[in-house]
């Protein structure tokens, strides 16, 4: 396949449509209907508990940070607050965009709006980009949420551990959205009926940032920005660390999530911050299953999946060399072995589509 074109208006996007790749049916493991209904069942309890814990912890940590400011003794509290603001908001944004975290719709919507603000995403735009991410996961030119493009730009990946590139991209887009609605690229996946909403959300976010900035100037202190805005930088590292593992080093242009997604077993704190999205193959295969049921889903279908990585460190040890190899060979990807109990990968379909998985490129 060679050089990839990630533009939604480029040759790879066109080829994905023309080849039938975008219309193809994704592989999923067979699960009895009664079992799946039980897994999909919604409830408010787990998410209410987690949300009280999250926002309660944030208020407490920020309160101590403010009380100790400007002493360096406040630093550990800001670091902990930052991870909850700049990383846990990513998973809350994600789960609530699916509408699966809570049973009650308004609860999903409120947490979604708050999380979207914290993670610096326009809540109206990103709902649609994520729908596309699920329809066309890692199809080059079609998926607007590809975190690691090929060849990987490792310096950029490292910068984003501090949210730098995301934030630098966010504010110009925010201003453009506030002035004129979605950008041309965003209009490829946001329906026209939603363009006004994109602009309204941008105006609200912009107003809050300007008010925070104004308060900081009035007080002659960055303290207001330590509470709102800056945590998206100093607390981003956890969501970038876990986010890279979702698909990094794996296949693109395939229609089997076992080939392009990664499940990683993690410690309980990371799972709280990440809201169980470490079960990422399971989530992509069955996006209607709420985060709190993903460990049970994993047990039900694991015989059909590649074995999960057993820790974050082990997953990075697997992914990082693959990213480095992609610097020299864009077609390289990790192809994990399936257990004997699993159905084979859909090699038959993939071989028909130009640029898709080729045996020579995988290991």
């Amino acid at each position: 396949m060679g050089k990839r074109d990630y533009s939604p208006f480029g040759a790879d996007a066109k080829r994905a449509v023309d080849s039938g790749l975008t219309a193809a049916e994704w592989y999923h493991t067979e699960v009895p209907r009664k079992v799946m209904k039980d897994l999909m069942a919604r409830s408010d309890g787990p998410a209410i508990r987690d949300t009280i814990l999250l926002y309660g912890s944030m208020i407490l940590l920020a309160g101590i940070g403010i009380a100790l400011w400007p002493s360096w003794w406040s630093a550990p509290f800001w670091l902990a607050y930052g991870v909850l603001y700049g990383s846990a908001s990513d998973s809350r944004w994600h789960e609530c965009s699916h509408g699966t975290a809570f049973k009650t719709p308004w609860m999903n919507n409120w947490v979604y709006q708050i999380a979207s603000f914290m993670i610096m995403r326009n809540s109206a735009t990103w709902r649609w980009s994520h729908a596309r991410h699920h329809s066309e996961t890692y199809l080059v030119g079609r998926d607007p949420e590809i975190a690691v493009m090929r060849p990987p730009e490792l310096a950029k990946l490292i910068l984003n551990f501090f949210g730098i590139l995301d934030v630098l991209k966010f504010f110009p887009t925010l201003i453009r959205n506030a002035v004129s609605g979605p950008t041309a690229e965003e209009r490829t996946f946001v329906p026209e009926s939603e363009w006004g909403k994109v602009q309204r959300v941008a105006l609200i976010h912009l107003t809050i940032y300007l008010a925070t900035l104004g308060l900081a100037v009035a007080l002659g202190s960055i303290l207001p920005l330590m509470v709102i805005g800056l945590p998206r930088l100093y607390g981003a590292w956890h969501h970038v660390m876990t986010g890279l593992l979702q698909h990094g080093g794996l296949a693109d242009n395939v229609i089997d999530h076992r080939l392009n997604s990664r499940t990683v077993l993690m410690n309980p704190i990371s799972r709280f911050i990440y809201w169980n999205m470490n079960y990422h193959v399971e989530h992509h295969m069955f996006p209607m299953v709420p985060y709190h049921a993903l460990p049970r889903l994993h047990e039900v279908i694991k015989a059909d999946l590649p074995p999960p990585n057993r820790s974050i460190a082990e997953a990075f040890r697997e992914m990082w060399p693959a990213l480095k190899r992609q610097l020299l060979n864009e077609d390289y990807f990790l192809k994990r072995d399936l257990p004997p109990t699993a159905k084979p990968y859909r090699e038959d379909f993939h071989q028909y589509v130009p640029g898709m998985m080729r045996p020579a490129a995988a290991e």
Partner: protein
Amino acid sequence: MPWISACSTDDIDAEDLIRWDHGAQTFAIYHSPDGQFYATAGRCTHEDVHLCDGLVMGHLIECPKHNGQFDYRTGEAKRAPVCVNLRTFPVKVEAGQVYVEVP
């Protein structure tokens, strides 16, 4: 338009749905929690995904791919990313059989 026998009332659990294909058309047939039966087009109006693997919650059907929701009694789109309503079809129950009026 003819009434076609689609399934038995026992074929669908309460608050669930099944897929029913007739000729070149595909439908979703629902058994509501209050014991009524309904029929809609089988595929989501957002993308070409069959609703039969979705989740019925009360009188809503949630698409299994993107979590868009419809009221299956009226076909009304209730939650993004679905924006276009779902087509519905008349249903009657006679002697334990569910009939759909097929266009």
